[in-house]
């Protein structure tokens, strides 16, 4: 089932996506090597979220191909024909891809620990006690060992987002997608989440991160892409792009944000 993967973990090829008659992605090409952190910048509405959501098939693309770890996402290609994957198969693909949302989307009726354990337990990824140990270890890693029995409503936004990261990590993903993970947070709480993400990057996790935190991009990013109107208009090492943007749109965007 390996596609033309080479040594890329993610390969996005000529992806087009429209909602109704509104084109949102107009031919996006992107590759991410294992262990690389790719930061996505761009104005509101440029299709950053949509691109992430296509990678784990939360949205169906209209044209193009996406491979993650060599597997074609959402479809099976056989004898020149595409077959939709069954729901079960899509779910299996998604397990290799962790996703962290802007609004955290923790399950409010479960404790912090239950949030992290839910998916591994339902998907029978080991004995319950083994899963619990792993969840505790993950929560410890994001600095929340003392909050395991709290409900999401009882902890701060920054803590919630760290739980969301632990929850995604509990499925041992090969790739993590972050969609503006800090933009719903009070400024004082942004740092604690970025710290966790930095730690992840240092441990070699492959990540695609949509964010407006330029400092993070500069410090942690291996590649930076700038999107506008559903296209990648500029890409390169973060320091270069940030210091010396080539494209007009990038320039004017950075002028406002920096």
């Amino acid at each position, binding site marked *: 089932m390996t596609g033309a993967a080479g040594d890329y973990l993610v390969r996005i090829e000529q992806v087009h996506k429209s909602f109704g008659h509104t084109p949102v992605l107009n031919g996006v090409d992107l590759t991410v090597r294992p262990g690389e952190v790719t930061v996505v910048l761009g104005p509101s*509405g440029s299709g950053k979220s949509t691109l992430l959501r296509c990678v784990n098939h939360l949205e169906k693309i209209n044209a193009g191909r996406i491979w993650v770890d060599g597997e074609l996402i959402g479809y099976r290609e056989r004898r020149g024909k595409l077959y939709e994957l069954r729901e079960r198969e899509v779910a299996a693909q998604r397990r290799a891809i962790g996703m962290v949302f802007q609004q955290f989307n923790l399950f409010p009726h479960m404790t912090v620990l239950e949030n992290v354990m839910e998916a591994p337990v339902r998907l029978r990824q080991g004995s319950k006690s083994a899963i619990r140990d792993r969840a505790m270890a993950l929560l410890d890693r994001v600095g929340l060992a003392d909050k395991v029995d709290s409900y999401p409503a009882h902890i701060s936004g920054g803590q919630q987002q760290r739980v969301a990261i632990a929850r995604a990590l509990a499925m041992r993903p090969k790739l993590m997608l972050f969609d503006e993970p800090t933009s719903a947070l009070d400024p004082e709480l942004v740092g604690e989440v970025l710290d966790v993400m930095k730690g992840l990057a240092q441990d070699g996790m492959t990540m695609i991160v949509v964010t407006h935190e330029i400092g993070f991009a500069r410090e942690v990013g291996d590649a930076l892409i700038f999107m506008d109107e559903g296209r990648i208009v500029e890409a390169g090492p973060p320091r270069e792009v940030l210091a010396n943007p080539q494209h007009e749109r990038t320039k004017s965007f950075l002028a406002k944000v920096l």
Partner: protein
Amino acid sequence: MSNQATPPVPDPPPDSPPERAAPEAIRAIPVRHPGRWLAAGGVAVLAAMFAHVLLTNEAFQWSFVFENLFTPPILRGVRTVVVITLLAMAIGITLGIVVAMMRLSANPLLSGAAWFYTWFFRAVPRIVLLVLFGNLGILWDRLEFGLPFDRQIGALFGIQDFQARIFGFDARTVLTGFVAGLLGLALSEAAYMAEIVRAGILSVDPGQSEAAAALGLSRPQTLRRVVLPQAMRAIIPPTGNELIALLKDTALLAYVPVTNELWFQTQAIGARTFRIFPMLVAACMWYLFLTSVLMVLQNFVERYFARGYGAARDRARVRLRSFTRGQGGA
């Protein structure tokens, strides 16, 4: 997960930079769902059986149904239903606003009375209320308006049988079935409307009243100009539901009795001709028609109200985005 059909790949906009031609659109073979179709099949068989009963069971006597569906007494019944619904709703809304204001008042006597009113009228079944109102004539044979407790006050000053009544009616000419039924429905509706209005007012962001107060507007001005117009958004949809419920509950008037009302009339024909079932079907058809009309209207009204706000917000989002985008790209 969206499961819409795959639309065609859009052409790139003409002014975009030249790039690789768009690849072929994805036309994948969809997954089959046999279980879902089995269930649908079951439902289809049930529907067919239902239709079969409707068409072949003699008890329906369709020709009799259609003969009687538009006779003058039935049409008069429909008119009565519509008239009483509208009248009761009008009174109910007016009185409901008064009761809601009382309920929100800081004065415990006013808010207590309003609480008692809504409690009583919402806790007793409407059929019981209506029969009660139909029998109110038992309490008084005259209804009189004037100084309250006149006799007692007179006695206090030593005047025997002092009366200070301004005008009065013979209860039985005033409390006809129609009036008793209308009154019962309207007072009951007022209790429900009061709760809706109250909830509507409470649903308005308190920041709105604060902003108005901070501008120096008085409390009545704030209520009239700022709070009520916004409360309407929360008031209109349940009011639509109330109107539909009220229309259906006019059928209960048959037990007051209000004789020229639709349900009484369909039953009267059934009683006279002993063709009960066809007339039940006729009643169903009329009510289905009337409530469906209201439901469609409600849909329009709600959509209109949604357009004013929610949809507008979406539009604003889009505008806002193109606005920022324009700035980002210029």
